[in-house]
């Protein structure tokens, strides 16, 4: 009998410990009570990642001045972790989801297509009033086929080529003369010859960022506006021809992963890095001693006078339908995306670039950036935003991203002919997604 008592003791102890751990069991704003009709009140929980979450944190004070009865709790979660949690939550019918979630623009369609009823229709809450405050590109990614907002536009990633002013000077290359990709390749050859530095870092096997920028710049993307597979397009061929030529001239530094690209940037192994505006923050953070050695110019065009604007990255806010405090959630989303003040805080302190047009009128945008050789870099990027062509990311963005990164590797590393490689990619995407291939 004695041993039975011991067993009970053990079980009891374990249960006790478990009960002790269960403090703070509130999940995503369960306690909040949305006031029907009246002023929003209660508590809302918001998910975001890293600097984006910190930007939302910065906006809370200003928000509370307008809505003193709403408590905002920002949870800082890893970027990919947000998606993991969001997918599980949406798949289980909205369990455990917060009131507001940040999602990258190129992933939005994926969630909207899979769970169309799980995201709040913002147009029904009046977001259409803000429609004209955003550029065409940003509108298109946050609206469904009927032109209704299912997400609120937040930041945007106008692209540019970040370059090392000292290396360009040493090679005698004037960045203002680089107007087309041909000029870019020529400049690369000169720089390589004079300084031994390579032109551009690419994570060949895993990231097709440069290709995506080039597609977007030409008004194309993985899929056309009807959602058909468009990787065999003329634009797609042209983009890979440029990338292949860069590789043939040995101007590409093949990097392993994000850390590899950052490391190459900081160590002066490359003279330029074409990326979204957000990369300016990365350079400043990781190479604080290269003050005044960096500059920016817009992506070179495919032909003289062609479009030099494109987008890479950017994110938006959605409100899961499962929220029990829609009023407060919408109030926060509206404040955070359409008021100038939170945009400027995010830009000045976290380097996140707003898509709200009225923000660009702020004096800050005409300032010269000391780090970037006294260039007006924010002005350059803000003027680019209106010209960013629309891109149809679709729900199968991730598949195309993987396939095209593989395609990039097969073209650059295995020497597959561009036409063949693109044809293969289109076939593969067709069998994976069931979409048609454009002629």
């Amino acid at each position: 009998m004695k041993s039975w008592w011991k067993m009970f003791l053990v079980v009891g102890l374990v249960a006790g410990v478990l009960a002790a751990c269960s403090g703070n069991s509130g999940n995503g704003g369960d306690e909040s009570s949305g006031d029907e009709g009246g002023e929003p009140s209660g508590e809302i929980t918001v998910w975001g990642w890293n600097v984006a979450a910190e930007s939302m944190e910065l906006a809370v004070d200003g928000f509370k001045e307008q809505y003193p009865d709403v408590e905002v709790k920002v949870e800082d979660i890893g970027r990919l972790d947000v998606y993991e949690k969001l997918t599980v939550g949406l798949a289980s019918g909205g369990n455990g989801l917060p009131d507001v979630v940040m999602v990258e623009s190129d992933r939005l369609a994926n969630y909207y297509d899979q769970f169309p009823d799980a995201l709040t229709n913002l147009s029904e809450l009046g977001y259409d009033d803000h429609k004209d405050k955003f550029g065409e590109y940003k509108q298109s990614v946050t609206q469904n086929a009927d032109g209704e907002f299912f997400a609120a536009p937040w930041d945007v990633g106008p692209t540019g080529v970040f370059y090392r002013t000292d290396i360009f000077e040493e090679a005698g290359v004037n960045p203002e003369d680089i107007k087309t990709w041909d000029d870019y390749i020529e400049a690369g050859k000169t720089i390589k010859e004079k300084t031994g530095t390579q032109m551009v870092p690419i994570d060949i096997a895993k990231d097709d960022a440069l290709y995506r920028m080039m597609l977007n710049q030409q008004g194309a993307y993985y899929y056309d506006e009807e959602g058909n597979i468009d990787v065999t397009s003329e634009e797609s061929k042209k983009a890979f021809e440029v990338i292949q030529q860069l590789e043939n001239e040995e101007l590409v530094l093949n990097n392993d992963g994000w850390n590899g690209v950052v490391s190459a940037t900081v160590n002066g192994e490359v003279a330029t890095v074409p990326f979204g505006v957000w990369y300016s923050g990365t350079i400043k953070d990781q190479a604080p001693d290269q003050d005044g050695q960096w500059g920016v110019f817009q992506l070179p065009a495919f032909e003289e006078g062609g479009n030099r604007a494109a987008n890479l990255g950017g994110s938006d806010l959605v409100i899961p339908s499962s929220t029990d405090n829609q009023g407060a959630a919408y109030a926060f989303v509206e404040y955070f995306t359409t008021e100038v003040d939170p945009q400027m805080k995010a830009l000045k302190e976290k380097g996140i670039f707003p898509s709200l047009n009225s923000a660009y009128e702020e004096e800050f945008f005409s300032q010269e950036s000391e780090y970037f050789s006294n260039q007006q870099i924010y002005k350059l990027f803000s003027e680019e935003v209106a010209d960013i062509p629309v891109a149809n990311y679709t729900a199968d963005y991730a598949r195309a991203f993987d396939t095209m990164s593989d395609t990039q590797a097969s073209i650059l590393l295995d020497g597959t002919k561009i036409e063949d490689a693109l044809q293969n990619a289109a076939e593969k995407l067709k069998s994976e997604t069931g979409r048609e291939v454009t002629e």
Partner: protein
Amino acid sequence: MKNVSPLKKTLLYFFLFVGVIVSVFPFYWMFVGATNPSGEIFKVPPNFFPGTHGWENFKNLNENVGIIRVMGNSLLITLTFTALAAIICTAAGYAFAKFQFKGRNQIFFMLLVAIMIPYHVTLIPLFEIFSNVGWLNTFQAVILPQAAYPFAIFLMRQNMQAIPDSLLEAARVDGAGEFHIFFRIVLPVMRPALAAVGIFLFMFQWNNFIWPLVVLQSQDMYTLPVALSSLVGMSRIDYGQVMMGTTLSTLPIMIFFLLLQKQFISGILGGSVKE
């Protein structure tokens, strides 16, 4: 070693030395990264010496993710889990190995099948169960689902089979109850296996990522891997903080292993019975 020629000895030490460098350097580099500001890690030539930025990194990390609280969470969850799972898995393994009951082999077969189910398949149903019970964002939600860890049960069963039946029978003849036998005879004999399974369970829960990520909702409840993962954003990563976090998450595993290492070496089954 007495008769080994000096040449052989030199070679031996040379390779051992290289081996030690290869396995220790990453840890050293982690430590260097943890004590330097973020930018230093990418410098060429690299900085090979620990810096003085460690405290700064730690402070930032604590401000950012509340690392002290998070480490406490991880320790509490992992230790509770390890103790609980070790008891359950040992008892289950013992039952499978030493008791005859109806359907034993069928149940064991199902257990083996359970090992092969990918974790993502059970993720959403499990999440729904815990959310219906209202246990989202609690520690028990992290601890309970894997407390009967199939692989650990399997491991314990295989080890238990080595216990001679005559030993158990002798105990029964002497009038010991079943629980007495389990706690007084089986467990002591099983110490090395228990230590191995314990380390295994500890490592599993300490590194467990997807489930705690999904089920824990607020930052003050996070475990270490979940909190560290939140440091990696879109384009800006403070590598000093990341390295400091990794260092802190590696230390307990090292300590736990060193504590139980003796069990591996000293525990011997022989001697408990003479046949």
